[in-house]
């Protein structure tokens, strides 16, 4: 059964059909929210709100774009709104414990502890550089590399042309690379 069929049934009040849509798209929705919020708790709340809002606005879904794109657009707006809240800002300032676990990475990775430590250091440098990006570049990079969204979908979500999204991703990569070079992670300088 296609998304359009499920949407039609959900419009008639079939909650189970909408539940099927939730199951199909929750991962994409969650990742989009996480790209904007970087906090799993906030991302889950935003994802729930997005599905709730989508259910209420099913009547306004005209089918010009795919249901997934429409849903991701709602999700992105919800996430951006939530990103502006004070609590969310605070949560992003305090990094979750899951992100900083260097010793576990060292133990689990690589052929030698030295290489694993170097790689872990590099990844931490990359993470810091990504966090330091401007919101537009960071959003484009994270959405593009999340693996769930095409450039076209990202363009619709963010409200920018595909070319702009591609440029942002490329620019974000360039800036991250440059920052790593300045910090001595690369031999290029």
């Amino acid at each position, binding site marked *: 059964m296609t998304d359009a069929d499920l949407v039609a049934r959900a419009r008639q009040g079939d909650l189970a059909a909408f539940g099927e849509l939730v199951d199909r798209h929750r991962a994409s929705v969650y990742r989009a929210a996480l790209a904007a919020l970087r906090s799993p708790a906030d991302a889950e709340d935003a994802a729930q709100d997005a599905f709730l809002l989508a259910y209420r606005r099913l009547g306004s879904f005209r089918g010009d774009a795919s249901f997934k794109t429409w849903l991701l657009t709602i999700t992105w707006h919800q996430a951006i709104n939530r990103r*502006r809240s004070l609590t969310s800002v605070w949560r992003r300032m305090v990094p979750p414990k899951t992100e900083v676990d260097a010793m576990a990475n060292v133990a689990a990775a690589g052929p030698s502890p030295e290489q694993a430590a170097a790689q872990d250091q590099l990844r931490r440098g990359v993470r810091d550089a990504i966090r330091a990006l401007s919101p537009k570049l960071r959003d484009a990079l994270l959405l593009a590399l999340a693996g769930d969204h095409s450039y076209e979908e990202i363009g619709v979500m963010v409200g920018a042309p595909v070319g702009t999204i591609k440029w942002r991703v490329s620019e974000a990569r360039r800036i991250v690379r440059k920052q790593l070079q300045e910090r001595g992670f690369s031999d290029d300088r």
Partner: protein
Amino acid sequence: MTSRPQGAGHRAQRKGHGATDAEIDRAIDVVARQMTDGPPVGGAEFRRRVLARIEAGHAPRTSWRAAWVLSPLAVAATIVMAIFVARSFRLHDVSADRHSQGEAVQPRDRGPQRPAPQEISTVAQSRAPQPAAASPDQNTVRLPPSPLRGFGGTRKPDSTERAVTVRAVTVPAVTNHAATNRAATSADLQRGAEAIAALTAPSLDLAPLTVDALTSDPVQIDRLDTTASITILPINVTPLDFTDVQRRYE
């Protein structure tokens, strides 16, 4: 047709002992994926929560709006409350202070509630000529000064207010005596009662006014003479011959 974002590793070139571009790009890919790959959302649980909220009719949470809008309002309301409370406490302290010092406290000017200037001046005038009221230890009661910018649209100081202030300078010593001495003795009270009695205006014995009846002289008007009737003769107008004129203009 959709285009997928490119991965890393298309410009790999090792130049030394540090990370190559390819390694950095690969690290960017991995880290970006990690940053959007948090703990998995439990499938059935997530679906159950969403559907439960739909059935309950919950609205999407918009707490951020409430926080951004209500916080400044709450702060402003708190400041206003604090100012009012502080002012009321200050007024209370001042009035208590004056009461303790035995002053006749004049109510603070609060615009429309203040006594009319005429009333004050009347009281002052009626009290001023009384000899018993004149006392060397009179207290001065000051009405609040005019605002710096004056009143009303003219922005001029209220001159009537000042006049009142000048007139109402003296307050009978009766109240002062009774209040300044905390241990009021019966003698003081007696003196105060006498002074109050002295304040009463003496009754005036006036002879009733008599008014003579008015006599009015009749007004005589001369009779108007009617003029003789004028006869107007009808005017006979002979009709003009327009033929020549009409011919000229045609």
